């Protein structure tokens, strides 16, 4: 999508016609198609469509609203946010030190630990992937799942959560699940989260 208009507004804009690099400083707003990113400073390479925005960055892309210390953009569909990243999308909040988000596929990756909070509960892990469209989350390493609505507390090495249709979570590796006064352990536990708030285990 190189070539689609990218707009930068700021106190100061410097442009090098030969390298295609734009440097914006002070009250920066960068607009690319449906994304709007504001910060203290931005450098955008119009030849590679790569941008780097720093300083209290706020990024809005369709229904995603994100804040972070810095954001890198690649083209108009790829955002990489670093430092105190908090992203809201509909009923979900994703937070962690780093977030890589592809708006075309609505896929988010938190490679350096993260937490996803939904209306159902919270899932935390060393590495989190979120297929936001399908409400499908994959957590790897030190996984911790809580659900206030179902009074569930669960731990495992890995977890695969399917929110939309089947509403279940598969815990693998040192899995422990506690609900009310029941505790279950195993190498693999599948919690079916039905609408009554109960969890069935297989």
């Amino acid at each position, binding site marked *: 999508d190189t070539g*689609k208009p990218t707009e930068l507004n700021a*106190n100061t*804009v410097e*442009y090098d*016609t030969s390298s295609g690099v734009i440097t914006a400083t002070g009250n920066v707003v960068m607009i690319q198609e449906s994304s709007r990113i504001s910060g203290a400073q931005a450098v955008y390479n*119009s030849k590679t469509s790569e941008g780097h925005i720093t300083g209290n960055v706020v990024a809005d892309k369709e229904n995603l609203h994100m804040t972070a210390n810095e954001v890198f953009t690649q083209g108009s569909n790829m955002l990489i946010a670093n430092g105190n990243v908090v992203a809201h999308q509909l009923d979900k909040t994703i937070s962690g030190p780093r977030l890589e988000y592809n708006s075309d596929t609505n896929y988010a990756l938190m490679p350096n630990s993260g937490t996803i909070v939904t209306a159902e509960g919270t899932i935390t892990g060393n590495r989190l992937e979120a297929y936001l469209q399908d409400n499908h989350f994959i957590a790897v390493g030190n996984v911790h799942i809580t659900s206030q609505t179902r009074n569930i507390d669960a731990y495992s090495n890995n977890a695969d959560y399917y929110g939309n249709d089947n509403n279940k979570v598969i815990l693998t590796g040192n899995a422990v699940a506690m609900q009310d006064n029941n505790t279950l352990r195993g190498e693999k536990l599948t919690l079916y989260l039905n609408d009554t708030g109960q969890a069935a285990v297989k």
Partner: protein
Amino acid sequence: MKSLKINKNKIAIYGFIIVVIAVCVWAVATKPVPQKKAADDVKNEQTMDYTGNTIVEERNGKKVWELSADNIKMDPQTQKAEMENIHGKYYEENGQILVLTAPHGIYDDKSKNILMDNGVHAQSDDGMVFDAEKVSWDNAAQIFVGEGSIKITKGDMQAQGDRIESSNAFLQFKLSGNAHIVKGRGAN
């Protein structure tokens, strides 16, 4: 009868004398006082007018500027030339040529600085188009400064702002004050 005649003569003589005195007084009273000339009038008289002339400026044997104007009024004391309807060419070191036009401007022969105002339009041979209310060339710093309603376009880039600076005929520039740039298809 005779005495009446003498009186008449005397009256005529006295009348004539009075008239002469009155004329002398009037002449003295209304003598035009030489006006002290206003400083500008004095100065204007000293400026030299050129019509349809060109000022050329070189650096190390290379042409840098070529300024022609419908009218150039050079003041030998200040060594500043006021120009009307300017057509200027700036020769960038890389061979690029910037053509500038402006209704009014001032060329300072001492500092080699140039000021163009009242709406400056510039175009370079690589397709850059630039407009500003005022443009100045700082010869010592070798910098262009544009001020007021800056608009610059080149290819799929369009930028606006309050002030612009460039040291290489806008190959690179810095916009400040409400700076806005759009790059990519559909920019302009």
